[in-house]
Structures are given as structure tokens and as C-alpha cells.
């Protein structure tokens, strides 16, 4: 079973993502801010991290930079799930080597598709 870590400060959103992906057979871990996400990512080595941008403690972007700076977590594929819909935001995140960028409110079918594609693809 592949483990997916969802980091978002909104409980309802984590719940929705959990329900959506658990029914596809994945194991879900939850973090409610960037720092917690970083700790869990180091400890649990998830196959995929789905992360919000605007979170307390550490933003998604800061978390991403920290992950990339650590050899243990540098390769974890990341999908950004955010309300930031500007093209400039998207490009900024893409420059940090993320595998997908979904804008809230997101389409669950699209999320499932994206997760499947990312997990099937080469983990580089």
C-alpha cells in the first residue's frame, strides 16, 4: 500500500482528500501545517506529498524548499493543492520541481487521476 501525506491547515479539506484517496486504496497521513508535514515526511517517507500553499508555521513553499534541501526527502513527488490560481504562483511552484498543481476548489476526479499518474511515473 502506498502512503500519501496531505498537508493542509483546513480540517474539512484534509478529510475530503483522505476520503477520496483512501477509497482508491492508498494509506493517508495528515499534517495541519508545514512543520508537521516536514517531520512526517522525514519519518514516514510517503510515496507522495499533497501540500497546501498558505499554512501557518511554514508555508507550502518553505516546506518544499526544506524537503528539497534534505537528501532523505529530496526525491518525494509533490502535488500542490492551493487556492492560489495565478499563473505566476503556479510557475513559482513548478520551478521547485513539483509534479502537479491543482487549484481549489479542486475536481476530485482530476486529483485521483493526477495521483495515479504521479505514482505510476518515474520517481525522480
Amino acid at each position: 500500500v502506498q502512503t500519501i501525506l496531505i498537508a493542509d491547515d483546513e480540517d474539512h479539506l484534509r478529510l475530503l482528500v483522505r476520503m477520496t484517496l483512501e477509497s482508491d486504496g492508498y494509506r493517508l497521513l495528515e499534517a495541519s501545517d508545514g512543520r508537521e508535514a516536514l517531520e512526517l515526511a522525514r519519518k514516514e517517507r510517503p510515496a507522495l506529498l499533497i501540500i497546501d500553499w498558505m499554512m501557518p508555521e511554514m508555508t507550502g513553499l518553505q516546506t518544499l524548499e526544506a524537503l528539497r534541501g534534505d537528501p532523505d526527502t529530496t526525491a518525494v513527488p509533490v502535488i500542490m493543492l492551493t487556492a492560489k490560481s495565478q499563473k505566476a504562483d503556479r510557475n513559482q511552484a513548478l520551478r521547485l520541481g513539483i509534479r502537479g498543481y491543482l487549484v481549489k476548489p479542486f475536481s476530485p476526479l482530476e486529483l485521483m487521476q493526477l495521483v495515479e499518474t504521479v505514482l505510476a511515473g518515474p520517481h525522480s
Partner: protein
Amino acid sequence: MTAEGGGGSSLGSKQDLHAQLLRYAADLQTSVCRERDTHKQLSAIVEQLEMYTVDLRRAVAAERRRSDQLAEAHLDTILRLARASTFRDNETQAHASRLGLYSGVLAEALQMPERERQVLVTVAPMHDIGKIGVPDAILHKAGPLTPEEWSVMRRHPAIGASLLRGSSSDLIETARLVSLTHHEAWDGSGYPQGLRENETPICGRIVKFVDVYDALRSKRPYKPALSHEDTCQILLKGDGRTLPSEFDPRILDVFGDVQERFDEIYRQNRDE
């Protein structure tokens, strides 16, 4: 209202009141902001749930399309099986289709439920599918069969039933029952089990009757084609070989009301 301690000047208490009002204003503003945040959060939740609803509808529609396609493919396979069953026999495709149509007329006259009627129309043409297990030497023999050959020939209902056994499809299950019981007779004189009366399911009783009707109407090596009137006469009154006691009396009863439609079906679906 005086300030705490009692003895403050009126100027001092005025300042206190002012400070207190400012606190109230600040708290009010905080709670208004919080309210606005909650509202924003709620509308984000609602928007997200709307997305879920849209996707759910999309997923259900896609699922329904796929299930329709599957049902269609399933039916298509069964219809091809029905056609295949007529190839080895001397019976024609037209005979097989007619059996389905007559069965539909009787099922309607007997007020069977819609779905059961449709199923019967679809599977009645397969009643002789078990004949694919009967050797050509017997199936295509020009002269009369010996008693041994007859006993082989009479295995075809059971062969067909074993071919169709164990399916979860109501179509195939009805086809199995029709194959197994379409030579049973109301008076117990049929085969393979010698079932009596309602022991034979209604689908078998119907196909038994319409098979005899069509056989009488058709030209065979050993007999000429009979007219509709002569055929009705034999079915309702009997002759040396066919007796009315072989048929469900309810079927004979409703046949009287719908017999013209049997003639129409025969004329409109002649052998080529």
C-alpha cells in the same frame, strides 16, 4: 456607573469609560473579522462540495454508459449464440425468430411481467441449442430414427441446460430453463423429466406450445406444411400424435384470443 474603588474623579471615570468603549470596539472588530473569515471558509467548503457533486454526477454518468455498453455486448453475445444454435439444425433463423415472437404474444396474453416477457422473446430462439451435442448422423438422418437414436436425440434439452448452467444472467438462466423443459408436457408425457403441470416453468410451457405450432405450420421431410386453421384444430382438439392434454390449459385458453397474431407472425417471417 462609577469606576472601581468608588472615589475617582469624574474626569478619571470618563477616561475609564472611554478606554472601556475602545476595548469594546476592538473586540467587536475582532469578532466581525472572525465572522468574515468563517464566512469565507464556509463558502470555500461549499465550493469544494459543489465540485464533488459535479464529479459524482460525471462519474455516475460514465459508469452508466459503461454498464449500458456491457449489457448491450452481453445481449449481442446471447443473440449470436441463439443464431449459432440454428446453424447445425435444419431449423432456420426465421423459425428461431418466430418462436421468440409467438412466445412474446402468449406471455403478453398471460399478463407476465414486462421484463420476463422481454427475456422470453430473446431466449426462446435458443431452445434447441443442445442439439449441437447431438451427432450429425442422428440430427440429419433422412429416415425415421431407431429407439436408440431417439434416446440420443432426447438428450438435447439436458445438453443445452448444462451448457447454460451457472450463469448470474437472468437471460441465460431463463434460456437454461427453456432448453431443459421445452419438451415437457402438461400431462406428464414429455421428457426429459416427465414433469407435470406447473412443475414445468411457464417459459417452458410456452415454448413447448409455440414450438409445436411452428412445427405443424412448417413443411418437413415427412409432412407437408399445414394451414393456420388446420394447425389450430390439431392444437385445440388433437389428432393421432398431438393431444391438447400436453399443453397448459391456460395457454390453450388465451391462444384462442390471440391465434390470428400467430398466423401473422408466421406469414411475415417465412423461411427463405
